[in-house]
């Protein structure tokens, strides 16, 4: 394992003159660094109170908040079908699912907050479009079958990505992932089951299912990120025990998982080159359209604008409610203080 020794910064502002305090802080940092190093070597967990390199903290805040944003924006495509779900049971399952995603967002924002970035700050980053979220949610959920395809493939890819994250070196993140993964696996089953019902239904339903799978397959495979050669941050994340497997390894694992599942559905995956490679013990699959991927990441996907506008409208329309709740809480606190004084 190669970890670049970070610059030791004793104080937040590098221009501050070295004082007695600063010397002590520098000593603390050195001890902290050695402790951190040891945790990495022994593959143990870093907790919020532990010293950690600034870059480690930044990487985590970025990853965890992006993950949280993805959960939140991810509520939109499926939320779009709550009002039109074709049976009351499906409506109920879908509502619970979208609500779960809000819960995942909450766990993850809380985990990121332990790294010293406030929820409001993260909201602001999403609001202004500075923060990224998973590109797959910039594609439209056109038909009911998309709800199935999203559950099966998107939640499926998420699980493949997230199961190893349950062992991520940062404690709060790993623990949040354990809870999230449990629910994602329900989501995947529910999605698969929607597609199974459709593919065994009428000709139109089967066509609807196939069409949704055709559209979702490529972007789902791209959820693991660019090919290993084009993924500059991956190496460092692996050295820090945040990431355990490379993008391509995870993608391969996912493809190997879904091929037999697609067969069980009676649907095809839209890749003529997909076939079992005896030698590798894996399925071979065709190159993905990475130009499109980067274009969507840059903001040019079919729905980037709509997703962000929806999010902004919710924040804007809710601003007066949040202000009122804060004002009310402050008044309550004042009243409590007042009565405590009176009774003292």
């Amino acid at each position: 394992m190669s970890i670049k020794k970070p610059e030791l910064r004793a104080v937040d502002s590098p221009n501050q003159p070295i004082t007695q305090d600063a010397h002590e802080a520098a000593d603390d940092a050195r001890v902290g660094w050695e402790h951190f190093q040891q945790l990495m070597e022994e593959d143990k967990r870093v907790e919020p109170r532990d010293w950690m390199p600034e870059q480690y903290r930044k990487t985590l805040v970025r990853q965890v908040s992006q993950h949280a944003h993805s959960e939140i924006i991810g509520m939109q495509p499926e939320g779009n079908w709550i009002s039109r779900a074709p049976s009351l049971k499906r409506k109920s399952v879908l509502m619970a699912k979208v609500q779960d995603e809000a819960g995942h967002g909450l766990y993850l924002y809380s985990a990121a907050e332990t790294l010293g970035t406030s929820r409001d700050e993260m909201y602001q980053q999403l609001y202004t479009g500075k923060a990224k979220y998973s590109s797959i949610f910039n594609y439209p959920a056109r038909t009911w079958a998309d709800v199935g395809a999203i559950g099966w493939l998107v939640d499926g890819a998420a699980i493949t990505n997230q199961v190893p994250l349950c062992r991520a070196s940062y404690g709060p993140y790993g623990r949040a992932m354990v809870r999230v993964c449990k629910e994602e696996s329900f989501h995947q089953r529910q999605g698969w089951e929607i597609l199974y019902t459709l593919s065994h239904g009428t000709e139109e339903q089967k066509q609807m299912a196939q069409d949704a799978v055709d559209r979702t397959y490529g972007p789902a495979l791209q959820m693991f990120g660019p090919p290993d050669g084009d993924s500059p941050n991956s190496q460092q994340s692996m050295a820090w025990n945040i990431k355990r497997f490379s993008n391509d390894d995870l993608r391969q694992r996912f493809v190997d998982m879904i091929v037999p599942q697609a067969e069980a559905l009676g649907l095809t995956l839209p890749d003529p080159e997909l076939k079992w490679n005896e030698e590798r013990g894996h399925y071979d699959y065709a190159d993905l359209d990475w130009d499109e991927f980067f274009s969507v990441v840059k903001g040019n996907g079919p729905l980037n604008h709509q997703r962000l506008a929806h999010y902004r409208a919710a924040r804007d329309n809710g601003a007066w409610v949040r202000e009122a709740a804060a004002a009310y809480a402050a008044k309550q606190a004042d009243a409590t203080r007042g009565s405590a004084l009176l009774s003292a």
Partner: protein
Amino acid sequence: MNSAADFTSQDSATRISVGDAITPEGLGASSTPAPEETARYALLLGDDCLILAQRLGHWISRAPELEEDIALGNIALDLLGHARFLLTYAGSAWGKSEDDLAYFRSEEEFRSCRLVEQENGDFAQTIARQLLFSFYTHELYQRLIHSADSTLSAIADKALKEVDYHQDHAAQWLLRLGGGTEESSRRMQNGLEAVWPYLEELFADVEPTAELSKNDIAVLPSSLRENVLTRLTAIIEQAGLRVPDAKGALGADRSGRFSEHRGFILAEMQVLARQHPGATW
């Protein structure tokens, strides 16, 4: 992943389920069919819950705060659950499923009250609608637990535990918005004014409810009025707001004279199911 039967789980961590002694599926399969008149009563109660769930579901991903996406989602899910029980039970009288009743009845055939059909409006108006409906159903289910019809009594028992939370959620927000900022207090008052004209309809002694109440199967709507109004008045005054003096809006008695909203609500809810009649989902 081999058997489709394994894939029906609804488990979810954000959802707090209060007991599950009965399920809509179980109800459909096992219990004795509802008598005709009782079925019509169950349908009326169920339609209210279904339409309100449909309205509330729209808030998911649009709420003022992530916690409220979850809270409003929870309430919508509960209401949908109540609707499924009531519609399943109602359908047993006519050999119809909950989905037959939800997706293949026309505007004229729904029996929902106008209160639940009102638009979400801003968050305050949604809270006002929640306040009225949850206070009303709380009172209703508390009494319906003692129904001579054992299925209705069991449904009321399950629903009451959840409505308890709905009531609390609405009341807490009423207090916060009433006592928050000038803007929130103004909006909350406007919200109350917007929905208040539709409160009176809930207490109309329509049929078959009035007739069934003689045999202690249903709760006579007018007998709920005093308690509901007293409790609403108390909480509204506690929030520093005024009880609207609007009289009940004329024109509806759950007999097919409905709000202009109903058609749009149903058009959206039913569109996919009606495009594929006879299909399984």
